[in-house]
Every structure is written in C-alpha cells, then in structure tokens.
C-alpha cells in the first residue's frame, strides 16, 4: 500500500510539472460544455439539452483523462524507458496500475470541480439525489478507461499507441452516447454500443445526476469493465 501512495505522489508531481497538459485536460471539456451549452445544435431528443450535455461532457472529460492522457503518457514512459527502470524496483505492475488510476481520479475531481459549477451557471438543474452513486460512477468509469488505456499502452510502441488511443477515443465518443444520443444511431450500432464503457458511464452519470434514465444496466456494464480492464492491463503490462 505504501508503494502505491509513493508512486501516486510521484505521478501527481509529474502532472503538476506538466502544467500545460493539465490545463488542456481542463480547458477542452470546458469549451465543449460552454459551446454546446450555449448553441442548441445537439439532438438531445426528449431530454432537456443541458441535462443531456453536462453528464455527457463530464463523461468525455473522464474518458479523455483516464484513457487518452494516461494511455499516451504511459506509452511515452515506455519509450523513455521509465517503465523498464521502475520494473527493476519492488513496485509491482498492479501497484503501478493502481497508482496511475488514482492519479487520474484526482485530476477528474478537479475537472468535476470546474465543469459542474459551469453547468449550473448555464442553467443545468440536476434533479438527482444520488451523488454518492455519481461519484461511484466516476470511479468505475476511471477504472474502466484507465484499464483500456493501459492495456494499449502496456503492449504497443509509443507511436502506434498514440494513434490507437486517439482512434478508440473517437469511436467511443461517437458511439457511446456522450455527445450524440444513442437513439440517433442505427439499431444494430445502438445495441452494440450499449455494452461500451462510454455508454455505461454517460448513461450512469445521467441517471445519477439527473434522476432519470436507466440505472442498473449501465452500472453493471461499467462495473464489469472496471473489474476486467485494469486486471487485464496489470496482467498483460510489459515493463519494456
């Protein structure tokens, strides 16, 4: 446990030293929220636009940070031989994976602290009273996406990993009901997308924050991803 916190501290120190990356992680979701919250261009269906948008953008932020940012950074750590060097210390693969997931969670708390007040300022009216479940959703989403990101980063060369992370991000963004409602997708795609972690997170955040929509199915989908993806990442992770 002590090594997890030591590594978490090191990860957070490095994050703080890369201030521009941290800023980008905060600014992009803020721009998304401010733009789509002010311009009514998204097909949100029967849902109140901001009730659809705010949890969706929060889900996008979580996916960007925990999968793409973490995955790409870890890929470059491999190319810098940082992972190989850590592999010669008593820090185990699973301790490293847990520390990285926790560091992402800290960043996401910052994102939530910025995005949610902006959503409220834009007129979002969260009717849900299940905030503990929403926090659990954030944690499950973080574990799921970080696991997926680390599965790729743990095996692929940095350049291929970079392309793979961005490609997967785009796919999950378009299919996962984060910005575009799943109802707008063709039937078979909508059905297939229902088991994606992006769908699980967006749906779960909407039901917990807005107090409407399905709860159990996205929870189960996300819990399965959160259990399997980090375990596979730790198992398949290569130090070099």
């Amino acid at each position, binding site marked *: 446990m002590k*090594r997890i916190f030591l590594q978490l501290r090191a990860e957070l120190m*490095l994050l703080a*030293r890369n201030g521009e990356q941290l800023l980008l992680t905060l600014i992009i979701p803020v721009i998304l929220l401010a733009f789509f919250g002010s311009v009514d261009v998204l097909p949100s269906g029967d849902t109140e636009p901001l009730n659809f948008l705010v949890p969706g953008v929060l889900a996008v932020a979580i996916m960007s940070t925990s999968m793409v940012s973490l995955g790409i950074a870890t890929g470059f750590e491999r190319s*810098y*031989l*940082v992972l*190989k*060097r850590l592999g010669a210390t*008593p*820090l185990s693969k699973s301790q490293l994976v847990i520390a990285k997931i926790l560091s992402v969670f800290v960043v996401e708390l910052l994102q939530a602290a910025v995005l949610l007040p902006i959503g409220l300022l834009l007129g979002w009216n969260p009717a849900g009273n299940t905030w503990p479940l929403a926090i659990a959703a954030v944690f499950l989403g973080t574990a799921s996406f970080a696991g997926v990101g680390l599965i790729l980063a743990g095996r692929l060369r940095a350049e291929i990993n970079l392309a793979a992370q961005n490609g997967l991000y785009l796919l999950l963004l378009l299919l996962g009901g984060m910005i575009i409602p799943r109802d707008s997708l063709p039937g078979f795609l909508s059905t297939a997308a229902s088991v994606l972690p992006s769908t699980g997170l967006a749906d779960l955040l909407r039901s917990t924050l807005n107090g409407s929509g399905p709860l159990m199915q996205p929870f189960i989908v996300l819990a399965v991803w959160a259990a399997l993806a980090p375990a596979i990442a730790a198992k398949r992770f290569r130090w070099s």
Partner: protein
Amino acid sequence: MSVVVENLTVRYGSLTAVDNVSFEAPTGAVTVVLGPNGAGKTSTIEVCEGFREPAQGTIQVLGLDPRTQHAQLTHLMGVMLQGGGVYPSARVGDVIRHFCALYGKKVDAAALIEQVGLTSRVKSTWRRLSGGEQQRVSLALALAGDPKVVFLDEPTSGVDIDGRDTIRDIIAALSQRGTTVVLASHDMAEAERVASHAVLFQEGRVIAQGAIADLTGVRKRFRFTSVATIDTTELAGAAGSPAHHMGDGVYEIAAESSPRLVGRVTQWLAEQGLPLLSVDMGQESLEDAYRRMTGGRR
C-alpha cells in the same frame, strides 16, 4: 557465485543474439561483460535482470530465477540502463528520493546525490542534464536499494573525465563492501580499469572468461612503432622471431620481451636508419587479448 548463466540463448525472431553462453560472476567482484556493439552483451544483461525471456538456458542471480522470482530479486538488485529511464520533466532530487522510498531500505537520498556528485543539480530536470550527469543519476537509482548485485550497462558512456572518476570510485567502493558488480561495456580500456573479471563476447558467443590478469597474462609481446614501410621478413630475421605489422607503423614481435630481443631490434633499426617512435613491451592489454583471441576481428 552471485550470477550463474548456463547455456543461455536469446533469439529475436530468426536472429540468434546470444548463442549458448555460459559464465559466472563471482560474489563481490567487478565482472565486465565485454565486446563490440551487437555482440549480445545487453541481451545477456537484460535476461539476468529479468526483463527478457531466454530461448533456452538457466540463469541464477543470488540464487533466484530472474523471471519467475523477479519480485524477490528487485529487493536485492540494482539496475543501470544503457540510457533513459527517467521522465524528462522529473527533477534529480525528486526521482532519487522516490526510488530510495520505493525500496524502503532507508538509503539516505541526499548522501547518494552527493556521492554521485549531483548536489548542485538537485533541482534540475532530467532533460536539462548533460549525458554524463544523466548517467550519474542512473547510477544513483541503481544504488537506491542498497543492492547485493548491480547490473550497469555502459556506465561511463558519454561521461566526462571527472564523472568517470566518480563512477570508478563508486564501483570500487561497491566491490570493497561485497556487492557484486556486473557491467556491460564495449570500452576495453575502461573495463580494464574498473573490473577484476571479464567475460569476452563475440557475435553472441563467449570466447573467453576469467580474471583479467589471467586473460591478459597468457602471452607477452614486444611492440614498437616506426615507419610503416618496414619489411617484416627482414625484421623477423633480425629479431629471431616472427614479426607482424599491426598497422599505422606499429610492429609486434611474437616473443617474450627481453633485453636481448630489444637490443637486437633497436640495433637493426639504427643500422637501417629507421626511427623508433615508441616501445611497448609490457603485458598485453585486454584489447590486445581480445584481438588475439578473435584474430583481430571485433
């Protein structure tokens, strides 16, 4: 023996990088794994560190299998990579303190930073360090866990003269306190300065191993430098032993140096009106021994 390698083979696809290699590194000694680039040194070291799976062979480091008992070995082993290993934006002090804490052996990070001569660079980031300073950080990280065995891959590569002295002193101190040091190098002169034992690699095979004093003490020779146009047949006749032109005006007489031999050669050079630019009649160097064993090929 702290490191025992038996019948090790490492393959990359169809390429055999290390071919049925066996050697030992004595406890408390400094053993250099020596050979030109691409000879299989780093692959061998990586197998010993547990980072690479061998195609065949048995490896024991402190009695542990580096692959299946890697977790136990990490508490006892220090590793210095050939390059990199630190995030570019990480500060020297932070990264060394972090590694000391990860091992949890109460190694004093400040003392370690001072030992590698980087106290004035403690707040510098890795990317702002010179190549030699980065090597010294890497060495500090290898020592952060007070290891029983350390693997150092090209530890003095790119390091300036002062830095080399620092690294040599640290390696000597490690050996004195009983730590086994295994280092990979292609720099034979440097290896000879820091190591007591050597394992000589050529094209993935071990061609010789043992105490450096034994490896270089096998054969004596008399070597001198003059102009590059001497007829070696005539020279051999004068010396009474076979003579070879080693290139660049360096000649070698294949006989043990003696006042009689030196007298004959210098007298012959004087008679021919040829200059005598330098004389070397000591024990052969490790590089000489390597060239002799490989027939001049590296």
